């Protein structure tokens, strides 16, 4: 490996986007990739679909089987990077390799937050992050079923991951209870009204939700297998399978003790560069700027990971790319109810104007949050058509004074917007970030 090579740590969305961005301008310089997981690049968000039986393994892969070869990437799969030496520009791995680099991308992702509970080490307790997790869960379900009865499940946390796990379990017909500490499901994305619709859909699907309470302890038997959870109210819920879905945090272990600055994640600027020149970070491990709240925070979301990967890759290859507005956004379908949230979707109070409309008969809800006459957050439940137009308004910080009332109507579309904006979206090449 020569010294002007690219080295990428990580094998998921950000890494793939970076590879494609590099190869768009530089077809020759070798790229080496190191990945702790041993699978061909796959799409993390699809793991719940796989567990539910909605797709087969082939559809898990994020890119074609010949992706590495076609993009002249040398993959080291199933290899863990153990140390980064920014000064000498070399990365050590657990195979005793010393990989030199000229330009490095750290896209090693996040790790599940394990709540500090007694009993999280019991058998039958899993996180819900990787394909390996799914394989383990699948095996456990099979083992329980072989042993007499399918497991009853408890999911700790009703965020996005928790609800996707719930969907998978209901698809497999497992009795499931969800325990959420906040007073509603999807607390970071939805307000009370919106959550209520989702909770209704969950209950209609035959699952139990407990909000505003938390798990104190995970109980296990003498063999170390989980037998139930004890929750704050005093109730004990018997179960044979527990999913810890209390959040994801950037995994910065690799850069601790180096000159690469971190906060909760690896700090990056608008070029996705870290505090060390020539070293970049992207995806769930990185921490950039939330353009709407103004806060520096990780934004571990699929589209953001891709975009950061693309910007990092372009810059690594000598280009000039910069991140535009980045903010949280999520799209998910929960038991047939589509739910989309963007930006400061739950904000209210000083400085914010909240517009909302709930359809009295159908499960359909829309909430728009304005600040200084600009859209800074939105929730679409049920009827999600054209939600992206609001995302565009948020990215472009478009002044919507004068048309605020139209944002909630059923036929809100490009026609509701001023003709200049409309022309820019339709005539131009796409959004400018």
């Amino acid at each position: 490996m020569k010294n002007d090579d690219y080295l990428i740590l990580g094998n998921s969305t950000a890494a793939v986007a970076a590879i494609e961005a590099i190869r768009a301008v530089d077809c020759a310089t070798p790229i080496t990739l190191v990945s702790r997981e041993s699978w061909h690049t796959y799409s993390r968000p699809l793991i719940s679909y796989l567990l539910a039986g909605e797709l087969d393994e082939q559809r898990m892969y994020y890119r074609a089987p010949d992706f590495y070869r076609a993009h002249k990437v040398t993959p080291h799969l199933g290899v863990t990077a153990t140390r980064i030496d920014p000064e000498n520009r070399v990365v050590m791995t657990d195979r005793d390799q010393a990989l030199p680099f000229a330009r490095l991308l750290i896209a090693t992702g996040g790790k599940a937050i394990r709540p500090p509970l007694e009993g999280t080490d019991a058998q039958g307790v899993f996180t819900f992050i990787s394909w390996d997790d799914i394989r383990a869960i699948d095996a456990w379900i099979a083992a329980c079923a072989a042993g007499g009865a399918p497991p009853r499940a408890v999911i700790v946390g009703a965020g996005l991951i928790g609800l996707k796990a719930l969907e998978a379990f209901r698809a497999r017909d497992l009795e499931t209870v969800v325990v959420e500490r906040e007073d509603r499901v999807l607390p970071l994305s939805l307000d009370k009204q919106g959550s209520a619709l989702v909770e209704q859909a969950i209950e209609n699907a035959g699952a139990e939700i407990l909000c505003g309470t938390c798990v104190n302890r995970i109980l296990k038997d003498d063999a170390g297998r989980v037998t139930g959870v004890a929750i704050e109210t005093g109730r004990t819920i018997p179960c044979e399978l527990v999913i810890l879905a209390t959040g994801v945090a950037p995994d910065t272990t690799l850069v601790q003790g180096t000159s690469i600055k971190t906060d909760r994640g690896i700090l990056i600027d608008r070029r996705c560069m870290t505090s060390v020149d020539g070293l970049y970070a992207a995806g769930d491990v990185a921490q950039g700027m939330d353009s709407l709240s103004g806060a520096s925070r990780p934004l571990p979301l699929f589209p953001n990971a891709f975009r950061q990967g693309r910007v990092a890759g372009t810059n690594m290859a000598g280009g000039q790319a910069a991140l535009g507005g980045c903010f949280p956004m999520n799209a998910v379908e929960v038991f047939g109810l589509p739910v989309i949230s963007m930006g400061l979707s739950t904000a209210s109070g000083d400085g914010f104007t909240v517009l909302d409309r709930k359809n009295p008969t159908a499960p359909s809800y829309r909430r728009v949050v304005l600040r200084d006459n600009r859209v800074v957050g939105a929730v679409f439940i049920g009827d999600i058509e054209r939600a992206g137009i609001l995302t565009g308004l948020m990215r472009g910080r478009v002044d919507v004074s004068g048309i605020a009332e139209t944002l909630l109507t059923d036929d809100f579309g490009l026609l509701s917007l001023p003709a200049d904006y409309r022309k820019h979206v339709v005539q131009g090449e796409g959004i400018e970030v």
Partner: protein
Amino acid sequence: MKRVYAKEAYCLGCRLCEIHCIVTHSKSKKIIKAYRTERDHLVPGMHVEDSGSVSFALQCRHCDDAPCIEACIAGAMQRDSRTGAVVCDEDRCVGCWSCIMVCPAGAVRRGRRGKVVSKCDLCAGEETPACVLHCPNEALHYEER
């Protein structure tokens, strides 16, 4: 690359473009048969926005920097290397709706076949897309700009 551009001033709001989009993407490709037997699972890949006297037809812009390709978790949104169009591989789509969330033109719709997304594919490289061909008032143009 060539894209479809709409002239708002000449759009009648008749929606013949939507109808012909459906027919071109149907199995039978014959209008009466398609509407009789396939209507339930076909959604036009483009749609007409209409409010009284102003209307125009909106197709996917096939953006150079397509946000839908970035957001697609299943890798179903791809660039057709031959035409440059952004197309959705419906077999890979899982209906997560991330593309609907990020499309600034609102050009992606939910399909009727359960989950899959419906989007303009520039009629898969035909010489002229169906909507352009059948607009009775020449309000749609297929050209490079």
